């Protein structure tokens, strides 16, 4: 049979059509797959690490040890090296997580670090007034729900509520500024601007996305704070309003870019159909293009929220960093991210404060996950159905 084929000059022979092993393609495919899995694995590992480090916050520790180490927290981090009483401290590599069991199971060993410095008050002036309170119930889980964030007081309290209030307040203010401005700008750019102008606007705003947040923070600190104070006449110069407005500057380019892409991706046939029905340009943009782009716009706003929620530098520089849980936008606030940013470098490794900071990290993590999940499963389905009809 085979020889017949060869003789008669067929082109469809088993020989010419034999399966080939394409090594480079096989290799490239495996490489891409492993890179993808690696990145997922890294994210999972980070989350695992952050969450594990936050576990000490849930543990009741013997009193005395928990209280004393608080004092050392902010002031002499270098004392890690000189106090060699604890076994973990003799092995600096435990910081890298090489011996996680030690960190989780024996956090109390770190507590034996004794520092004579009492200048913790500089870090939190309020501590002066709280020096002699009963130590029990402090430093425990219950204080997480209190209204006071005094992590380096002699009598530390880790109330997360003011941090939550502050973060949500700043996020809300930032989104109230950023979302309308960015969406309207995107609508203008995609539906009304002449082509030459659009070619300028889009890259210009996208360039803003690469602006270092420390520069925005600086600008807010020096310029915006003064300007808003002159306009509104509030007392505290740095507050959630200034911080929110500054973070809006960081969020606008993100929301703008994605919204603009979503609006541009709306098929041209929609525009034509609407105009042919006698709709004006404005009616077409608002009643046809905008609703058709809802999922994209929603994703844009979510990304903006994620950006603001996790923004650290602007929060540190422009919000005043006082952990107050007031609803007044012109009061100083301390955000979750700024708290980590400000305190993590000065905290005692493995201690309650350390654990709480990591807990905050986990919360930021979980919040973003929840936000995205919410968007995916609830809002996308419900909102899109409402605007675009069932089964869209």
């Amino acid at each position, binding site marked *: 049979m085979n020889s017949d084929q060869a003789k008669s000059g067929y082109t469809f022979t088993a020989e010419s059509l034999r399966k080939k092993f394409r090594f480079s393609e096989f290799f490239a495919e495996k490489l891409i797959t492993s890179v993808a899995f690696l990145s997922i694995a890294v994210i999972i590992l980070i989350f695992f690490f952050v969450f594990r480090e936050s576990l000490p916050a849930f543990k009741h520790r013997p009193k005395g040890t928990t209280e004393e180490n608080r004092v050392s927290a902010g002031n002499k981090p270098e004392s890690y090296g000189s106090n060699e009483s604890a076994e973990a401290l003799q092995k600096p590599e435990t910081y890298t997580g090489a011996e996680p069991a030690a960190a989780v199971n024996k956090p109390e060993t770190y507590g034996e670090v004794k520092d004579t410095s009492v200048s913790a008050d500089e870090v939190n002036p309020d501590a002066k007034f709280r020096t002699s309170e009963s130590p029990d119930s402090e430093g425990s889980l219950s204080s997480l729900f209190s209204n006071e964030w005094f992590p380096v007081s002699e009598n530390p309290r880790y109330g997360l509520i003011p941090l939550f209030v502050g973060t949500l307040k700043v996020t809300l203010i930032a989104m109230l500024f950023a979302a309308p401005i960015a969406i309207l700008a995107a609508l203008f750019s995609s539906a009304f601007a002449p082509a030459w102008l659009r070619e300028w606007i889009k890259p210009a705003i996208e360039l803003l996305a690469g602006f270092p947040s420390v520069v925005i923070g600086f600008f807010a600190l020096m310029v915006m704070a003064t300007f808003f104070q002159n306009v509104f006449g509030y007392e505290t110069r740095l507050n959630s309003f200034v911080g929110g407005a500054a973070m809006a500057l960081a969020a606008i380019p993100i929301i703008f870019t994605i919204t603009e892409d979503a609006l541009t991706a709306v098929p041209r046939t929609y525009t*034509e*159909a609407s105009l042919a*029905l*006698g709709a*004006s340009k404005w009616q077409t943009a608002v009643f046809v293009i905008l*609703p058709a782009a809802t999922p994209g716009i929603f994703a844009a706003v979510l990304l903006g929220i994620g950006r603001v929620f996790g923004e650290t530098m602007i929060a540190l520089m422009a919000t005043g960093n006082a952990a107050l849980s007031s609803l007044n936008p012109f009061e100083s606030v301390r955000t979750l991210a700024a708290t980590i940013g400000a305190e993590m470098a000065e905290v005692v490794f493995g201690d309650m404060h350390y654990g709480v900071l990591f807990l905050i990290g986990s919360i930021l993590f979980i919040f973003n996950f929840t936000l995205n999940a919410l968007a995916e499963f609830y809002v996308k389905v419900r909102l899109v159905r409402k605007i675009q009809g069932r089964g869209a």
Partner: protein
Amino acid sequence: MKEAKIVTRDLTLHYGLKMALNSINLHIPEKEVTAFIGPSGCGKSTFLRCLNRMNDLIPSVHIKGEILIDGLDIYQKKIDVVNLRKKIGMVFQKSNPFAKSIFENVAYGPKINGISDKKKLTEIVESSLKNAAIWDEVKDRMHDSALGLSGGQQQRLCIARTLAVEPEIILMDEPASALDPISTGKIEELIFELKKKYTIVIVTHNMQQAARVSDHTAFFYLGELIEFGKTRKIFTAPDIKQTEEYITGRFG
């Protein structure tokens, strides 16, 4: 021939430097169906889009000459394009319902014209869908997405959407070219019904379709109007040889 609804005088159109229509003179009669035939790129769609000034959207287009509808030049400076398009409906080659529910699709036109009364809107939507012969298929799913309909249903929905604005003229740009024969048949029946009330201009690649639905036929070639006349005459005894060759399939 009935009275002409649309008259064009020396209509010439350029895309940039390229001439797409050369001095078209045409009388489109009222409440009849006029079909434009011709090979791809001959300018028939471009001409159709001149009639409701959709070409205004393309910056490089320059138009000379006149288009008179009921004797009024629609390219005058004083004409409001938005109001003009309310009187001239258009159905596109590719069905393009909005990403909204079926009801909202049809109600969109009346809504932007300021009708907000729910009862009135429902009436308009129902009668438009009935006139577009799609009511029975969608009456139980008015609030489902229009994108879930089949291609033929979507196209009839687009026709219903056009009817809801109560135009006088309906322009159809190859309305059935992407549809199967059954859906095409339904659209053709629909056109036959609609011409009692509306002046219809249809661009088609399908010669049989032109022969079936139209009263008058215009043959375009390379931006020129070659021949215009009663459909029966164009398809049986055209005056010009080019027309005959195109219709019998010898070129184009």
